[in-house]
């Protein structure tokens, strides 16, 4: 049986929990062989392939809940603080480059400081830096520009969509 080009790398990356982004060659291969990969991951690992125009990733019940919760808290506080500064946080997430200095300022002066200090990944500038560049970087949620600078890849949209759905759910519950 012939496998698509870069098959091994595609499987390894996706099983590592990485987002494969549309600018990567593997993404084109997945897109071209969408049916094959949907079937392959479901039959081999019972994982669902999520393929959007911007990224591909695997979703399953075997979820890293702690990491996902920490990343969600990170985005929640970042959006909240950017909004507090009167910025359009969606534009900022999509188009801006961030420095660690800026992130630290927002987090250190946040009114969610009790929550931040009780979170092992976000409690100070060192853990925050490790969390962003290592944990989020490994999964291609951010792209590193330099040791102090980064920007978000379209993977952030998974978390934004989560917030939207949660709000919708809460609002529906209130009605």
């Amino acid at each position, binding site marked *: 049986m012939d496998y698509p080009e870069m098959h091994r790398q595609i499987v390894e990356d996706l*099983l590592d929990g990485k987002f494969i982004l549309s600018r990567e060659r593997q993404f084109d291969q997945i897109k071209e062989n969408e049916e094959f990969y949907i079937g392959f991951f479901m039959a081999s690992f019972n994982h669902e392939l999520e393929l959007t125009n911007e990224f591909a990733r695997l979703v399953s019940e075997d979820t890293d809940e702690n990491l996902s919760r920490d990343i969600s808290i990170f985005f929640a506080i970042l959006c909240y603080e950017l*909004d*507090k500064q009167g910025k359009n946080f969606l534009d900022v997430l999509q188009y801006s480059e961030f420095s660690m200095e800026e992130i630290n300022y927002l987090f250190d002066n946040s*009114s*969610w400081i009790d929550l931040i200090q009780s979170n092992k990944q976000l409690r100070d500038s060192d853990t925050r830096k490790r969390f962003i560049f290592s944990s989020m970087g490994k999964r291609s949620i951010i792209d590193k520009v330099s040791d102090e600078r980064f920007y978000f890849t379209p993977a952030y949209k998974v978390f934004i969509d989560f*917030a*939207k759905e949660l709000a919708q759910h*809460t609002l529906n519950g209130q009605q």
Partner: protein
Amino acid sequence: MIKAEPKTILHFVWSYFDVLRELFDVQSQDGLIRKEMLEIILERNKRDIKSQLIEYKILRNTNDDFELRDVYYKLIEFILFEFRPLLPEEIEKFGTSISDLFRNIKEGINGDKAILVERIRGLSSQIKEFTDSVEKNSIRLLNESRELKSNVSRLDYREKIQRASFWIQYYILPLNSILDVNHSESITNKMLNVSEFANQKRLTFTDEGIRQSFEKLYFQLIQANDDLLKQSKLLTNELLPLIERIRTESLIITGWIEFLQTHNKIQPPKLLKSKKDNPYSKRVYLNTKEYFEQFKTDEEAIIADDDQQYETWVFNKSKYKRKLINSLPIDNFFDWCGEQLKDDTNEITNEKVFALTGLLFEDDIEVNSITNSEFLNIKTRTSKISVPILNVKKNGLP
């Protein structure tokens, strides 16, 4: 006097906390617990604990109705982090008591030592209560402001502004004045004066016990000052610009506020667990072995005979050099090469042409090219080579 053991009461609170919480919510809303409401709550929870609630002095009668005793109300309030907003007047009273105690301490500094120690203790307690009240109020106001921002109850814009204006006018601005260090009458400013005095006395007072009391007070004030600064920053950054902040509304921010408030109870988005193993994992030995085995080449190498016949041609340099020297002068070197190869071999190949071209670099011949002349094409087995027309003659001869 309560007859029950303390642990029995604590166990009771632990066992029936859900009922107590409901009673707390009712009292927070209505100011008391009506006797009908108490019956409904007990019946709904299928708990017949009215007599214990009275016996353990958790509930107190107010006419025919009930209320949670202050100590339990505050305990539940603290555990749930749901504080009642305090009116500025309720906080300002601490300013008066701090001022009075401070004045009495200064005036009676050389008087009775026992009363001096008691007044320092009293001052310390008032400062503690004051900072606690400010913190609790900030938490409550912050929650109110976040609720307005997330607007889960879908208030229209006018109503939102009205609520925000209410909080700002009656709670946020007065709290800001209480904390404003630049205002001479603010409580924070009064505390700074106490701190300065305590610092001086902890170093200079003759009695050691009182020196220690002032020292304790001084360090408490440093901590209190830090805490109040934090609250003041919160007011400036988040609460005072409340109207500005609620002008925009976003579904995403609503979701995030909801998530941050109850993040432990909400399932975050699914994120695949990485399959990478730790060095101490059970599977790491087999996985490592598998990884290295992929680089092993176990495939059999087969050398097959090639049936095709190839001409064996070895360039005999001295033979061709002799032929070249004997043919000099030559008008067209590559033409000569072609004739030689046609005579000696079955086919002309690149390799043979290049081998003969090497003769041009011999010392005893001289090579000249005819400028602007046409190029000559040589066809070999695999290529067409375009070469210039070269004259070759013996070196040194005209």
